[in-house]
């Protein structure tokens, strides 16, 4: 997994609440058996018209937002399905940081598995930061310091320390868990005794 440390970009702003995973990447693109290549279909329904032409009004079709690495959006971002294609599509487009006042749980968790930092801020701070999208000015995100720097100001954000460590170091979850194999084996031996129907032995 790609490490996440610092990031500087003009943010793109989508002032829509409850952006669901079907909006982020519609189902017709879930038929892939790869993780890559989904970026061109990110926000497909809003981004392209019926003829497949780019919709000019849509922020991510406009310069400089077509190169934004930071996406600011309304609350409850990523609600709906568990499809990891949603963070894969964001990542493939180049977005590695999302800022919203809340996220759906599964989407939030999926971001961390893909080197994407989802930041939670209060609504009023979101409005403040969205001004930087309107003015096309850069903001900086520093994960280690847990802060966003914009203009002469900065905002602190909070993040689970374990998730932070995994992002900063680009750690592979599975390898970490496999280091606990002894504990897993012990647990399994125990349930074979006390709950024999689980393994159907």
């Amino acid at each position, binding site marked *: 997994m790609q490490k996440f440390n610092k990031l500087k970009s003009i943010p793109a702003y989508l002032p829509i609440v409850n952006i669901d995973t079907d909006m982020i990447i519609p189902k017709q693109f879930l038929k892939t058996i*790869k993780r890559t290549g989904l970026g061109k279909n990110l926000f497909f329904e809003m981004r392209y018209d019926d003829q497949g032409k780019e919709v000019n009004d849509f922020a991510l079709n406009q310069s400089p937002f077509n190169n934004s690495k930071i996406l600011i959006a309304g609350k409850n971002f990523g609600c709906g399905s568990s499809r990891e294609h949603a*963070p894969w599509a964001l990542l493939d487009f180049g977005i590695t940081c999302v800022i919203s006042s809340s996220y759906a749980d599964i989407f939030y968790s999926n971001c961390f598995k893909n080197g994407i930092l989802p930041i939670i801020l209060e609504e009023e701070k979101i409005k403040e930061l969205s001004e930087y999208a309107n003015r096309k000015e850069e903001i900086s995100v520093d994960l280690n310091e847990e802060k966003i720097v914009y203009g002469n100001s900065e905002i602190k954000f909070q993040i689970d320390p374990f998730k932070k460590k995994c992002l900063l170091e680009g750690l592979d979850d599975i390898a970490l868990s496999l280091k606990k194999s002894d504990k897993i084996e012990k647990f399994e031996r125990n349930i074979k005794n006390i709950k024999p129907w689980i393994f159907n032995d």
Partner: protein
Amino acid sequence: MSTTLYDKIWNDHLVDQQEDGTALLFVDRHLVHEVTSPQAFEGLRNSNRKVRHPNLTLAVADHNVPTTDRTKGIADAESKIQVDTLEANCKEFGVQLFGMDDKRQGIVHIIGPEQGFTQPGTVIVCGDSHTATHGAFGSLAFGIGTSEVEHVLATQTLVQKKGKNFRINVNGQLPLGVTSKDVILQIIGKIGTAGGTGSVIEYAGDLIRSLSVEQRMTICNMTIEGGARAGLIAPDEKIFNYLKGKPMSPKGDNWEKALNYWKGLKTDDNASFDQELNLNAGEILPMITWGTSPQDVITIDGKVPNPQNENDEDKKNSIERSLKYMGLKPDMAAKDIKIDKVFIGSCTNGRIEDLREAAKILKDKKISSHVSAMVVPGSGLVKEQAEQEGLDKIFVNSGFEWREPGCSMCLAMNADKLKPEERCASTSNRNFEGRQGRGGRTHLVSPGMAAAAAISGNLDDVRKYQN
């Protein structure tokens, strides 16, 4: 210390817990389907890892499968690759798969309970948000992403942090024609699609206990639409009777041992919850959704909202956006909404009781001439049962199409989809923009309400057709 059902299941599955609260949870049952698993199996292959417990894993293709004649295979090349990939992966890694021609094939959340793979007190995961369905059995069941699917395949565990305890008590009796679908739509309308974020919801109260196993599944299924991680209902005799004798249920001595354990699975009397909500079942009416979020609910007697009545700017914009997408006018009566299509099926309402409920309304009636309608049974076994009861004939005689099992038009990954601006009364779970096809307009309803809409040609009150 008094604990909740969620606490108990959580504590019973802790393999390890770090100081910061990050836990490693043991996973008893892992369901796999074709859409969210190929990259996970590929990850295993690239890292030279195996599936740790193939016997705790069950796979089925459901999202992409055609619901028409399957003897010719899958026409869509990409869908076919995905289904074939699942088959090849299951073979390579030794995972049991119900193939497309197996009569046990069906929607992953319908076949788990049907086979007795779903059991009380277990942790069940699947790369699908509607895994919440299995919570009806008193299991902690939740959807995961593909990276987590890979993690579970490799380690039979999952990295998690404990969520909050949220209890929803529903007491009283439901009025005639009102179902568990209306209950959960009402709940989502009240708490909103982010209302359960970070929580596990336990459903309790005498109404919940009076519901059948299948009705409970409908409630737990849509818990994710309320943003919660999982929905739970304490298991009781109905659950134990349902599971007894199922192919993968415990047998002999193990059955007795399991039963003994299952009977202890309940929230202690004094356990505390972070949040509670009380509902009176008697006040719940048949519901529909008018907008593009499952929280956009009104009763069938109600009117579509008017953005001018909304002070909050975000909400106002959101209503305007939804009305535009849905092609509706403010203050329009629900019953004036004319429909083109009806879809009965999905992991929410594709079980035998759902089909019976719809068939009861449709018996000896014809659907409206401008409506096209389809029934997609949740599994091959549901289909077989329905045919034995003659339900298929009722549907076909009324003008419905009778299809093969799968997810179908719930998310329209296969050939079943709405055309732009087509309007559908659907028993599925999501009315998001484009969900049932680009530009398609979805109104979520119960199976009885879907049947009533099919007959009337517009959204209508199922109570009108009750005998």
